């Protein structure tokens, strides 16, 4: 019996290896998803873990016993396994729970578990009650992303092409702020931008306050607790995420290309536009994603630097989840946020392309 099985495994061909590899991958992923999402009663969860374990052991046995053809066809699925298991347990399962929550309703206010009831009105509430917060989240994140490109590109360019032997130190300086907590850095800005703080007094000494008020940067002579401060905070906090990918894409550019362009009578600015910029677009694209996506969901900057009229959707989601205990609506809001970001990113990638993402 056992020898017959071994014999069959030995003689298995490539295509059946692929079939089995894929089937096991899906099986393991589905089991982990079921465990993570809590589909089954506690006792069965253990059973599923046993199934997963057996599937993995079986896969290894088959790979050991099988011929080189079988092994080669199984290898990609084996290598995919850790990643897909991770994804199933820590991404798909929570996502599914969130989706289910967002369509549930609580029977009484202090229910722990909301009951699933196709409650689409949660999405209605998410839009109708929190429309302005959604709007501000994308507006502020968008402006902040544009600012990080405007500031970050020249910085990255300078480090990559003019940094010389200081390159690594300069790059290190970009990263140094990360050694301090995000929260602390943001709170520090709230004292720098305070009414009696250094920023305002410098502006007043230079008599720029009237001008800044005129163009809407200051409000009643203050910086802190304004939309400006929130956007500023986002820009500051996410700047390194823009500089680093742009730097990486610029650093790869062969400087001889620019020499060649100039040899062909291109002006410096034309060489930049025709050669450097297109080659660095993947860096800008990656930086935009790294900046815009977390910035749109951020709540720390709006909380410490904003006022009650500048709250972003992240603040609302946090409040609904952690203070109001309103999981269904909070989940719907989180889902809408995710959906809008996905759509925006897809549109954006249509124009900039992801093929050679840095």
């Amino acid at each position, binding site marked *: 019996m056992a020898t017959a099985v071994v014999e069959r495994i030995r003689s298995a061909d490539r295509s059946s290896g692929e079939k089995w590899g894929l089937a096991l991958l899906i099986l393991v992923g589905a089991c982990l998803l079921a465990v993570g999402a809590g589909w089954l009663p506690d006792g069965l969860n253990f059973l599923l873990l046993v199934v997963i374990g057996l599937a993995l052991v079986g896969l290894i046995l088959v790979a050991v016993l099988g011929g080189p053809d079988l092994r080669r066809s199984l290898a990609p699925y084996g290598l995919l396994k850790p990643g897909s298991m991770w994804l199933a347990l820590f991404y798909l399962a929570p996502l599914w729970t969130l989706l289910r929550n967002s369509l549930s309703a609580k029977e009484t206010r202090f229910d*722990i578990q909301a009951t699933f009831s196709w409650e689409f009105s949660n999405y209605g509430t998410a839009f109708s*009650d929190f429309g302005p917060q959604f709007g501000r989240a994308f507006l502020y994140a968008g402006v902040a992303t544009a600012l990080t490109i405007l500031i970050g590109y020249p910085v990255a360019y300078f480090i990559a092409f003019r940094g010389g032997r200081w390159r690594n130190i300069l790059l290190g300086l970009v990263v140094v702020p990360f050694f301090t907590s995000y929260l602390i850095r943001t709170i520090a800005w709230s*004292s720098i931008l305070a009414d009696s703080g250094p920023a305002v007094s410098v502006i007043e000494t230079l008599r720029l306050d009237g001008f800044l008020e005129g163009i809407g940067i200051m409000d009643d002579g203050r910086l802190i*607790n304004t939309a400006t401060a929130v956007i500023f905070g986002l820009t500051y906090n996410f700047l390194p995420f823009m500089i680093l990918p742009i730097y990486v894409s610029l650093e790869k550019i062969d400087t001889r290309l620019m020499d060649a362009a100039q040899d062909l009578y291109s002006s410096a600015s034309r060489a930049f536009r025709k050669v450097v910029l297109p080659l660095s677009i993947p860096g800008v694209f990656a930086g935009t994603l790294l900046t815009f996506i977390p910035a749109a969901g951020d709540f720390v900057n709006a909380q410490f630097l904003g*006022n009650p009229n500048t*709250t972003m959707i992240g603040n609302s989601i946090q409040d609904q989840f*952690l*203070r109001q205990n309103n999981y269904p609506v909070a989940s719907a809001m989180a889902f809408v946020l995710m959906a809008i970001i996905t759509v925006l990113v897809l549109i954006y990638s249509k124009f900039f392309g992801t093929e050679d993402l840095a």
Partner: protein
Amino acid sequence: MSNNFPDTQITRTPMSRRQLLARAGALGAAGLSLPAILAACGGGDSGGSGGGGSSLYVENWPLYIDPSEDGAIGTAERFMQATGIDLTYTEAFNDNLEYFAKIQPLLGTGKTIDPDIIVPTQWMAGRLRDLEWLDKLPLDQVPNAKNIEDVFKNPPSDPTGEYSLPWQAGTAGIAYNLAATGRELKSVSDLFDPEFKGRIGMLTEMRDTIGLLLLGLGVNPSSIKSFDEAAGAFEQLEKAKSDGQIRAFTGNDYTDDLASGNFAACVGWSGDVLQLSADNPDIRFIVPEEGGTLWWDTMVMPKGAKNRDAAAKWMDFVYDPVQAAQLTVWVQYQSPVKGVRDEVAKIDPALADNPLVFPDEDTRKRLFPFAALDTDTEAEFEEAFSRITGA
């Protein structure tokens, strides 16, 4: 009233909570307060009277107890010396709603939580009692419970008084920075003075903010029953927020904004402002002429708490006026314990005469606790409030 715990030594160089805050700030770590200090002092010393070997876990708000330092022995440490009980005292209680969200999955499904005593604000204690998540206190083992001030007896949140014993009380009123306002304030309507546009702070604690605005509108917050009766205050708040009158809704961090002048005036808590004004005489606290709100945080035992005997000893200990006076001198809130004033007078006579710490009859009459709302009405209030605070 005698000191029931004669073998505890009280050697004290009075140090206020404010000084500790300043010190913690200098260290750049407010987190390095009590737990660290206790951990440093902790444990091993189980000498003293009482039956050793038992333990107790109390979870309270931050900076709400006198610590052991500068030669003074903190209440927690004195309690351990007096009773031999191994006390774990943590300060994880930071926000009523957040704490509720944290314990709900456990107590709501019949599981227990670790602390034997927690100290929610009285309305939250009422909610926990309604949900039947509390055990009755072992009051028969707490002889000192008789020392409770009359105003705190049998509140609406605990009509029989069997479930809660107040820890400290305080007042929400108007705090202002004279240097920023340029004039004395006296009324709730001052918060809506256009002159202070963008320089007004309000508390995220709904009952304190709305309660004060209701008083300003001539409505008694102790007697409201429906949302409609309070709608005026919500409209007023909404308008002030949209107009940009309100700079921020804050928790305890309003003290920084007030001290730095970001806020000209705000809704604040008596104890905090008392300590701030010691450093900066321009910072004032008033109970507005229309009245202020009275709140208190109250000790309760979550359902299934294990160490009932030790918990009774703790409550008895902190309801001893001599011990309670030590708390009052440090936290500078109102003590719910009778006889504390005389004890405080021996340590700090000026504090004993402060009407914000020991309200006289006139002041008492102007302080109103927020009504106990039924669940649905409360939900309406909280939703409306969270919509305005914009979070």
